[in-house]
């Protein structure tokens, strides 16, 4: 059991900064995901924690102890690599036992752990196969088993599911969650897949260009994105963005945009008074623009606007509508399968004032206090 604390970490390759002043604390037993686009420095972070990459500046603490100068082989961490990095010349059994042999674990205990691991990961019967003789999903489980038998304080996972197909990934995610619950290890998980991040982690650290954009629980990251980047990166289909002016008209505060005056709900109105009169960027998720022909469904905080439907994309349970509003503004929203919107028709939609995100275009941060 150990917490992992990164404090003001810097890292650069050949003078190009990859991580800049990043601080992050992972609590003992927590499942934290580092989520970000390709090349944002996730693997670099993980490799620094594992000791495979040096830290240019800043401190790394594990269980309260400074770890910067402790070599990788002395840190009690285990890492699962994106490529799994199974030893090709060793059988499944030898791969799983490798670390135990290196650490001179007693044969009886070794056998006990091996039996536990192959049962936990459903690898029975594959013990004597070489890595090339098992499937991708099985390889991933061997890599996990190999890491877990070492009983590490911290488990580091670098996109372990990215090579799996959708169905396998789903079951692997469940398996990982189950493992986390049963062994209770501190897990730091790297992915660029928001579904994985959302469904497994206790907290998500959103990274972009080596900066920590937000570090919060999945629901909070989704409901309250603190930066423009997080808002655009999290959620599918991606958020709509409009520019406008934050102002008060009559009794309501809202944003004057080309498609109309979008009202904020009372709670949000209070949180944004400091920015009144400023130019802002409004973010609205497609899920929060609704089409309904019952006018009575409208809430007081909803804004009603008119759009012209142009394109439809089927998402299975719902359709994504790409529509155009005044000033050629393109907005995407979702409609239920039984809604009947026809192409090139004007439709009235409601924007949910309780779910509007407003960002300062200069700082690219949320203006809500």
């Amino acid at each position: 059991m150990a917490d992992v604390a990164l404090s003001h970490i810097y890292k650069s390759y050949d003078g190009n900064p990859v991580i800049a002043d990043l601080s992050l604390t992972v609590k003992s037993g927590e499942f934290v995901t580092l989520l970000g686009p390709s090349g944002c420095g996730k693997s670099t972070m993980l490799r620094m924690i594992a000791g495979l990459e040096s830290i240019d500046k800043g401190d790394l603490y594990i269980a309260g102890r400074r770890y910067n100068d402790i070599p990788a082989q002395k840190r009690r961490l285990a890492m699962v690599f994106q490529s799994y990095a199974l030893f090709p010349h060793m059988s499944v059994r030898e791969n799983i036992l490798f670390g135990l042999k290196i650490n001179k674990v007693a044969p009886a205990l070794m056998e006990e752990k091996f039996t536990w691991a192959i049962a936990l990961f459903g690898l029975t019967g594959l013990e004597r196969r070489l890595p090339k003789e098992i499937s991708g999903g099985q390889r991933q489980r061997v890599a996990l088993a190999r890491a877990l038998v070492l009983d590490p304080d911290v488990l580091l996972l670098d996109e372990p599911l990215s090579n799996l197909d959708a169905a396998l990934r789903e079951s692997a995610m469940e398996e990982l969650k189950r493992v986390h619950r049963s062994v209770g290890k501190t897990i730091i998980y790297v992915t660029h897949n928001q579904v994985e991040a959302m469904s497994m982690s206790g907290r998500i650290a959103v990274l972009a260009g080596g900066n920590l954009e937000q570090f919060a629980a999945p629901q909070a990251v989704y409901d309250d994105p603190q930066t423009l980047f997080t808002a655009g990166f999290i959620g599918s289909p991606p958020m709509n963005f409009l520019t406008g002016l934050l102002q008060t008209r009559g009794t309501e505060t809202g944003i004057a945009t080309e498609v109309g005056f979008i009202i904020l709900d009372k709670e949000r109105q209070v949180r944004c008074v400091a920015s009144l009169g400023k130019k802002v960027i409004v973010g609205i998720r497609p899920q929060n623009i609704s089409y309904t022909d019952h006018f009575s469904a409208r809430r007081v905080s909803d804004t009603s606007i008119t759009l012209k439907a142009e394109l439809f994309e089927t998402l299975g349970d719902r359709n994504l509508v790409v529509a155009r509003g005044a000033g050629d503004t393109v907005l995407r929203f979702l409609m239920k399968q039984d809604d009947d919107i026809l192409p090139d028709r004007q439709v009235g939609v409601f924007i949910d004032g309780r779910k509007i995100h407003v960002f300062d275009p200069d700082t690219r941060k949320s203006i809500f206090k």
Partner: protein
Amino acid sequence: MAFKPFKITPSARRLLELWPLFPAAVYLIGFLIVVVSYLFALSFSFADEHGVTIFPSFESLRAVFAAPEFNSAFVNTIAFVAVGTPLELIVGLALALLVYRSFHLRNIVRSIFIIPLAIPALVTATMLFILFDFPGGHINHLLMGKYCFLPAVLHNPINWRGVKLLALGIALAGKVWRDMPISMLILLAGLNAIDPELFDAAKTMGAGLRQRLWRIVVPLILPSISTVVLLRSLEMWKEFIFPFILAGQNNLLGTLIEILYNNWGNAGEAAVVSLTLVVCIVVTALVYLVFIEFVKKLTARR
């Protein structure tokens, strides 16, 4: 009438694909047959005192195997193979690891280590000859303090090439020095084929440098290692130039052939020694193949 494509069965296709190799194969096999049959003919003929050639005769064979020169040359050659092959492997592996680990300068470092191969063996051997000359070689001068920067350690020069073990040792050192780039390049290719994440994985599991070397590197470059062992041991058997220049009277089989043929004009006995060398090389190759099969079975899976 439509053109009907010519049908080829898969086995015929495979034969057809081998067709371009045919001239080379004929040439090689023909060459071998001519040379080896001539070697046999020479080995089993004997010119008596009247100049009449007797065939077949075991006289050359008997004379060679009875001669103490042959025995010592045979022992010397075996020593070359037995010491030189592992030495080339170890030096090659050490250099390959060094080049592999010198990340940014890898290309430069590698080029530096290839230099010995660019110098003709004869030049290298002659350089060593001059260095270890007696009484006036550079090494002697150096040890006697004739160069300003070093104190004298010796009063009298040493006849380096006059001592059998030293002479052979210098010859072997020259050979290993010149050929180390070959082993290095083969082993480096093997190293470069390993996914570096395997080392990272081993590290995170607690493996130190030595454990990574023995448990990951060596097993994974076993094919390269066995290539080196085969190539270098065959080379050691037939080594000529370094002992010829540097080892003086201490012959190897390779130099003995030259001496018998050119100095003593004894083609029959030279042929017998050559034949012995051929047999040794074939036996080495066979032993190697058996050994590789054995290692494969051993490392298969447990």
